[in-house]
């Protein structure tokens, strides 16, 4: 029973962190924007996603194999984004 209480407490702490991050990113959007706004917003989103994957989706208790499967989708998405950017970012370069 005690183990469970600590588990629920842990979930609540993670939830608090998630809501805190949400408040942070929503609040930051009222500041005057700059080049850093979007990277910061995406960093916060990544942190939130990590918390959800690691605690809510219980990756922390899973085998390495399952963790690899969890990362694979993001890795392949990165391939799609990076190689397509290789086209769009260099279109105007001189030959």
């Amino acid at each position: 029973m005690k183990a469970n209480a600590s588990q629920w407490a842990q979930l609540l702490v993670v939830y608090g962190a998630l809501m805190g991050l949400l408040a942070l990113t929503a609040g930051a959007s009222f500041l005057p924007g700059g080049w850093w706004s979007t990277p910061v917003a995406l960093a916060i989103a990544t942190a939130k996603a990590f918390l959800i994957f690691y605690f809510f989706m219980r990756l922390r208790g899973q085998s390495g194999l399952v963790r690899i499967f969890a990362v694979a989708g993001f890795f392949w998405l990165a391939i799609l984004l990076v190689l397509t950017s290789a086209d769009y970012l260099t279109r105007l370069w001189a030959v």
Partner: protein
Amino acid sequence: MPPLNPPAPPSRGYLSDGTTVASWLCTRDHKRIALLYLFTITFFFLIGASAAALMRWELTRPNGDLMTSDTYNRLFTLHGVVMVWFFLIPSIPAVLGNFVLPLAIGARDVAFPRLNLASWYIFVCGGLIALYAIVVGGVDTGWTFYTPYSSTYSNSNVMVMATGIFVAGFSSIATGLNFIVTVHKLRAPGLTWFRLPLFVWAIYATSIILVLATPVLAITLALMALERGFGVGIFDPKLGGDPLLFQHLFWFYSHPAVYIMILPGMGVVSELVSCFSRKKIFGYKVMAFSILSIAGLGFLVWGHHMFVSSQSVYAGVVFSLLSFLVSVPSAIKVFNWIATLHRGSITFGTPLLYALGFLALFTIGGLTGIFLATLAVDVHLHDTYFVIAHFHYIMVGGGVMAYMGGIHYWWPKISGRMFPEGWARFSAVTIFVGFNLTFFPQFLLGYLGMPRRYHIYPAEFQTLNVISSAGAAVLAVGYLVPLCYLTWSFFHGKDAGPNPWNATGLEWQTPSPPPSHNFEQTPVVTRPPYDYPPL
């Protein structure tokens, strides 16, 4: 491994476990689902082949006077769509993969038997939608669906066809997911990763591509269809959209998809070459890793379809380099197959004839892929018949040859009967001859500048086109003969016995046809793969 000589089968195994229609349509047995797929894709092959026959008939005349342009355009679209998505992509994975994979790893079934059956129903749904699109007037965009033609200008049933492919895509995803989990979790005790037959490795790598690439095709077709439906969308140049983005998304799926079409064939050929030279495959680990690296690197080269599309010059250079690199593992595989034959004890059964045909034709197709990956040369050859010849050499000469070889190799296991060897050798040779007659002239046509998707062409291209069409007639004979004798042998062939080829591999330790649950006791593996006795 010496065969265990199981007791004579009381009946025809899984085939006699219920003979009602419902027992087939509600089955969860991977072997029966494999047969359901076999019938379905054979039907689609005949449709795609009929379109090819009509196209080759039209191309005997330079004036394009046997059919209208719209008819011809609908024919090559139908041919490409059906052959790729409704025949070749499901061919080896969904038929031979479904049948052999659980047997080869000593499992009772795939990991999710219901999902397996559902995948066939999804496939049939997608197929029926595609057939509906064909029946109500066809589609004239080419299998590549390039925007803005497909999204704005075409007057054909693009939405319906896109829906059919979209639906069939989820069947691919379900199959891939099932095989990945099956290989990870259901291997027999002792069957470590490096004891797996290369066919299993190939199906596993293919499944990874299926799961990670197909969703991108689905969303791309959905975006194209939305643009068509609402008249506004992200590929529309009027709003600042870029048609090249569609091409990036399409080829991010469709280049990996060409490896979906060849990797299973490479797996089959590895089994055939090893079995008929009675020798362990040469460089087994290198073969396994080359399969994985083709699957991985295959995701990095899609831009080689866009060299003249006005994508960035630098992106072109990067994609060209990566295309050369992805070819290295393919070359290694060719060398290893030949090295496996070296100092073997070779018998020329029909499956080996198909495997040798694969070796020759895949090599030619692959080498011409190298021509196309070379930037300066592709500028000239892009969208000519050279490309058509390149991919038919690989997909028909490689993929379909391997599929036919695999069907013949496992036919005794599937049906419990032998096919007539004489007829089978005749048709294997006929296919090889007819194939080269059909597609070799197309390399010349392409170099001379005959563009793809042209049914009206300058008169001096006629001779080569007529030769090509004559070859297609020979090819038709080569494909129709096996259809006849395999059907005949299913009912009347000689009893095969559990292991007619004396092959290693767990699937040959079951009776032919195997019982519904495959194995009485779960086998325990203690030996490396292809463990043939020393010569």
